């Protein structure tokens, strides 16, 4: 190569420069688009967070109030409740999704017809719009005419007011999330399982290992990096929950199912308090970034182990 470069330096370096320009021309549209539509609004949010700006008052002029909005974030008991609710929601849904998803992925990991049909069916809940899923389950959990209570009554269990009781409302919302997203975990893990190297497994079998041992000693460590990523994605996504809660409980009863996105939405677009919503947005992003960094560290640690 060097000789060729020697002889044809000028032409190659010219085309190299043309290539670089071309490459940048590919990158610029997306970057510009995201910068304007996603990054700038975030900066604007941060800017507004230092002001009191009520958008519904006609002659609203932003009033500089320094860190007052941030102080309010830490003393707002309703915000604290919704943050806690969201955390509980995320932890509960994700742990069940991961465990169940993994087990079901293992169970359908063959190439048989049943497994392929099962996979196709599992795709439906996860492509359903969360509002549609929330609506469907609200219909089924209705305490008077819902089919869930009816089926329970056939088993001798009396009707439960799913969405009117503080505990069961939370359980219901978590359940719908699990219902929709365990399939996602299943599908992705199943794809990951398909890509596993067969020789380790064969060797272990020859050595007389039980399936469970094969799973624990060989399969699990191999798919740990994948599981870590899935865990991170699901955990972060759980904090974005908005649609299902909006449709199923609106945050009630009381504040039992009030989640962070719903709370921020209310502050910003019901009470039109742009400053407070901005402060919450900034803190939310910072918290999420921290979580992501932790997960990335964990994942590279897992990969290093392999």
């Amino acid at each position, binding site marked *: 190569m060097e000789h060729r470069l020697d002889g044809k330096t000028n032409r190659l370096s010219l085309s190299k420069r043309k290539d670089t320009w071309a490459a940048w021309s590919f990158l610029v549209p997306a970057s510009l688009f995201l910068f304007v539509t996603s990054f700038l609004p975030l900066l604007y949010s941060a800017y507004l967070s230092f002001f*009191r700006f*009520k*958008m*519904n*008052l*006609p002659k609203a002029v932003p009033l500089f109030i320094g860190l007052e909005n941030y102080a309010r974030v830490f003393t707002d*008991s*309703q915000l604290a409740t919704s943050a806690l609710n969201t955390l509980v929601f995320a932890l509960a849904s994700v742990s069940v999704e991961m465990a169940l998803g993994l087990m079901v992925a293992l169970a359908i990991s063959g190439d048989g017809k049943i497994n392929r049909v099962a996979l196709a069916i599992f795709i439906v809940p996860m492509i359903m719009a969360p509002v549609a899923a929330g609506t469907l389950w609200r219909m089924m959990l209705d*305490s*008077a005419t819902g089919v869930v209570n009816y089926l329970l009554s056939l088993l001798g269990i009396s009707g439960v*007011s799913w*969405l*009117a*009781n*503080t505990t069961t*409302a939370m359980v219901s919302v978590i359940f719908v999330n699990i219902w929709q997203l365990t399939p996602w975990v299943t599908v992705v893990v199943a794809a990951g399982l398909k890509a596993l190297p067969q020789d380790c497994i064969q060797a272990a079998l020859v050595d007389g290992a039980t399936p469970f041992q094969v799973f624990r000693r060989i399969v699990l460590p191999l798919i740990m990096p994948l599981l870590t990523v899935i865990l991170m994605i699901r955990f972060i996504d759980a904090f974005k929950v908005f649609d299902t809660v909006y449709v199923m*409980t*609106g945050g*009630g*009863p*009381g*504040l*039992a199912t009030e989640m962070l996105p719903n709370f921020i939405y*209310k502050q910003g*677009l*019901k*009470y*039109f*308090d742009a400053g407070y919503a901005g402060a919450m947005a900034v803190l939310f992003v910072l918290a999420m970034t921290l979580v992501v960094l932790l997960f990335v560290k964990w994942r590279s640690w897992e990969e290093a182990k392999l």
Partner: protein
Amino acid sequence: MKKRWLPLLLCLALLLSVVSAASAGAKPYDGQTLTVLFMSSVYADAARSLADEFKEATGATLEVVDYPYITLHDKALLDLTSGTGSYDVIDVACQWDGEFAPYLEDLGPYIEKDQFDTEAFIDNVFNQAGKWQGVIMGIPNANTPQVVAYRTDLIPEGLPATWDEYCALLEKLNDPANGVYGLATPGVREQYGGIWDSILWSLGGAWADEDWNIVIDSPEARKALEISKRQIACADPAVLSWGLEEAIAAFLDGRAAVCDAWPTLGITKKGNDPEQSKIVGKWTLGTFPYEKNGITNLSAWDVAINAASAKKDLGWEFIKMYTSPENQQRFYEEFYIFSPRKAFWEQDSMKAPEFVTLRTALDTALMWWRIAASVEADTAIGTNVNAFLAGQIDADTAVANMKQGLEQALKMNPVEPGVKNFNR
């Protein structure tokens, strides 16, 4: 040949011009569309029923957009503050009058021009729905005090005048084993707040005094919470997640003795229809216990014109039509919407005892705050009452939270100087 065609053509041309002149004169707004925003259910349905008449009179098409109460406020405010003018006419719930007023058109000039009779409306209602700080920004078109629907076969003697007796009555009638509860109520936090307010006010309590000092931390508030708790104990456990629809359906199904879910939004229409009700002929309307002052919650709506609309004149035509005595009468007959016109209540058909009670209540009924802070304030009340009833917090915490919520609402939405609190 040409000679014969020419006069014929001339006649035809003359005829056409006469016809077009006549039709042009009769339809000044030909080809235009007026977009109006109403709350879903009877109010929007009534608006839709005007479409043909509107087209006849003005040549314009009527487009009715509706949203449920909970999102109606947000959607209307979204349009008003963005100056998009998507809605030309908006039916404003009177508690939003203060918040929306800056974006609505002053109707004074229109009233002048057409000599619109503003004295024809019940004063108490007009003062709270349509008039804001001396300016008329909306014409009241629907009103009802918080009333109760109850079973005449179970409560033949009528409703008592004190809350203690009322609760005792509910407890007596509460018979879950036989599928009948004492009370059916919309317990969801966006609705129940209003009912609780009626209890609070009739006990003599209030959110704030005339100068906006918060006085909710009071024995009346605690008593009102207790009363609510007693009542909810006599209702279906699922009641805390029920909206208006569920509560009304339960009552029509015969599963409750009393229902306080704005009966005019469903019970009055379906109550005596055998297809939709199991309690035909066995119910009537009554009011909440008088207790100290008989003050109850007022629900009133006023139609207003969006200041950013391009069709204000056309909007005014619509308002006149929607609030005209004839249409208001028809709305009552078809949709059971009570009119705020004095003459409406003076008819013979409205002289039955239950209607007289309603009319009297309309003279004292109150809405909660009408300033911009009202949405946050109402939410603070509703959420905390709901949380208390769900057992999440105790009475002291609830009252403390409500106080804090109201103070916060006022802080974030400062009252314009000179505006006094004429409500509660």
